[in-house]
């Protein structure tokens, strides 16, 4: 019986937090499955929605940046394809950020009535965004067939890049989620971040249009690394700008560490604040 003697004290950060997180993996699955099935049950066009939104944005960007502003694509890749390859990870990132930031407040009843590692809730929402992402990936495949554009061997790195996109979304999401519980005003800030991010990230254009002297600085935006990576792997037309990719990776790692740390610091008071 003494096997699980547990001491609760103020300020005691839990020694076996990660083991606990592992013990609650079933709850994680269940919550993720709940969120996915609720999402696709509630909106009649659930699946369609995941597809239509990035597709329409892609059309607009292709016209504005490709046709009107006449920005160059990457190598021989059609402009629309290049935009869509960047649109996918961006949509994933923005959906994850805005859904996760609401997730704790939306699950307030759970938070205030049962114990579980709170990290589960926003992470489960990011998984839901991942499902959307995978669905709209089908559109990319169709588009590639339409343009008769075959990816080369670099496509084998796709799973790793999806993982990178997941981690790059998770870090900032956790941080914003925790802030949103404490300072509810953050919910007004997030749509703004998402809106702005769409234009400062290389979604509608290739990051090769950025002047070389600014390129490294530009890559401090973690989404830049993810989008460049996706284009490199799917289109395989331009050389990867490795220093920038390394910078994006470091920023992603930093945000992940920082997000988890901030989240855990505030986690203990969630039930009292919510």
């Amino acid at each position, binding site marked *: *019986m*003494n096997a*699980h*003697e*547990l*001491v*609760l*004290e*103020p*300020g005691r950060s839990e020694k076996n937090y990660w083991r606990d997180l592992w013990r609650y993996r*079933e*709850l994680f699955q*269940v*919550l993720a499955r*709940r969120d996915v*099935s*609720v999402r696709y*049950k*509630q909106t009649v066009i659930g699946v369609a929605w995941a597809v239509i939104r990035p597709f329409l944005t892609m059309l607009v960007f292709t016209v504005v940046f490709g046709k009107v502003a006449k920005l160059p694509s990457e190598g021989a890749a059609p402009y629309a394809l290049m935009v869509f390859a960047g649109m996918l990870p961006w949509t994933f990132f923005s959906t994850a950020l805005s859904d996760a930031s609401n997730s704790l407040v939306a*699950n307030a*009843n*759970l*938070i*205030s*009535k*049962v*114990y*579980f590692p709170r990290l589960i809730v926003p992470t489960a929402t990011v998984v839901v965004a991942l499902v959307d992402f995978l669905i709209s990936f089908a559109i990319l495949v169709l588009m590639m067939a339409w343009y008769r554009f075959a990816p080369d061997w670099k496509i084998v790195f796709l799973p790793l890049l999806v993982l990178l996109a997941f981690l790059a979304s998770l870090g900032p999401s956790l941080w914003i989620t925790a802030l949103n519980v*404490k*300072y509810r005003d953050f919910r007004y800030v997030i749509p703004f971040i998402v809106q702005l991010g769409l234009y400062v990230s290389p979604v509608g254009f290739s990051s090769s249009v950025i002047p070389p002297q600014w390129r490294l600085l530009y890559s401090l935006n973690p989404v830049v690394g993810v989008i460049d990576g996706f284009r490199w792997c799917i289109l395989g037309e331009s050389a990867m700008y490795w220093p920038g990719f390394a910078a994006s990776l470091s920023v992603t790692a930093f945000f992940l560490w920082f997000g988890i740390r901030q989240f855990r610091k505030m986690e*203990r*008071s969630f*039930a*009292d*604040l919510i």
Partner: protein
Amino acid sequence: MSRPIISVEGLGKSYLVGHETAHRERYTALRDVVGRHVRNFGRKALDMMRGRQIIQGDDVEEFWALRDVSFEVNEGEVVGIIGRNGAGKSTLLKILSRITEPTTGRVTLRGRVASLLEVGTGFHPELTGRENIFLNGAILGMTRGEIKRKFDEIVGFAEVERFLDTPVKRYSSGMYVRLAFAVAAHLEPEILVVDEVLAVGDAQFQKKCLGKMQDVAQGGRTVLFVSHNMAAVSTLCSRALVLVRGRLEQSCDTSTAIASFLESLKQDAQNDLASRSDIKGTRAFELERIVCLSADGAEGAVASGEEARIRISYRRSDHFDSAANLILAIRDSFGRPVAAMNTRFTSALVDLPREGVIECVTPSLPLVAGFYSIDAYVYLKGTHSSGGDLAFHLADAAQIHVLPSDKVPASRLQDAANAGVMALDQIWTQADKAACVS
């Protein structure tokens, strides 16, 4: 004797709460309002920069929901926790189940804790009964295997076989509660922590829940049980803790604890209600005291079927001129609404003086024996239904102890759920058979 399964030492929990001072002031000068807003904004900005919590309101006060609580529970004990609203019962359970962190002191748990603070936590209306069983089970800490093994038992207990694949938003509220309780009732932790969950569902189901709780209690599980239902506490628990404003006042056998709790309620009734901390509303009209008197003037206790007189002392601020709408809602020990007394039906209460006493008399109180509580509401500038301003609201403002009488004898707890709450005047005879034919 082995070590206690739960030890609590010097436990305390404080919350920061904000107050709005604006409503209490009679005059509000624009200068004051602006000054207050600027001050508030400054404080909030400062708090945010320091990474502290932001609190709404004009003054921030530290409030101790629990203070210096120490006790031990041995394995297999069933312990009741009683105390009036806001005494800190739920806070204590939340700390034990790790939902919130203590501010001071320490708790040592030597067993797995499952908590049931609410029935149906995490149920999702869009999902089917089957999906919700798995969801809720996982939330309460059951593994998938465990839920699968008990699935049939849970469905049987809840009596919802036919609706398993219907979204629970189509369930009647009774079915919903039955399903939710059924999942929780099949938890098998070493320590079970239960908060006020019997106050839901219909009478028959409550009886079933009580029975289930009794099985759990007799099964050697350690249980902490919070309830306002003294009858349930005294049947289920061997020992009880009495919390009074966050402090542990008593820890002794159930009957002594209940007696001392009821005594403290009676003493509280002597005090001014306006000093209670759980009042809501603008307080432009305050109730000072509510007592229930029997025909012979005994306070607090009334016999079933006899005259009951509720006496309310009040005071009001002088800047309102319309009539007040006063509502007294009576609830039984399961928390179910039983009856309400509402001044909407009378015109006797216009032009009230600044302070005074109002009485409401029921010639024969048609309630069966037991404990009832009164929630008080006062609305100004209109009634509750016409959208008046809530001036005063206090839950559990007074207690009525209804004694058994010759007309309506008391019934035991297990029957109480079936006996209902009404004491009807009843005349039984044998009818003439011939008279029925026509």
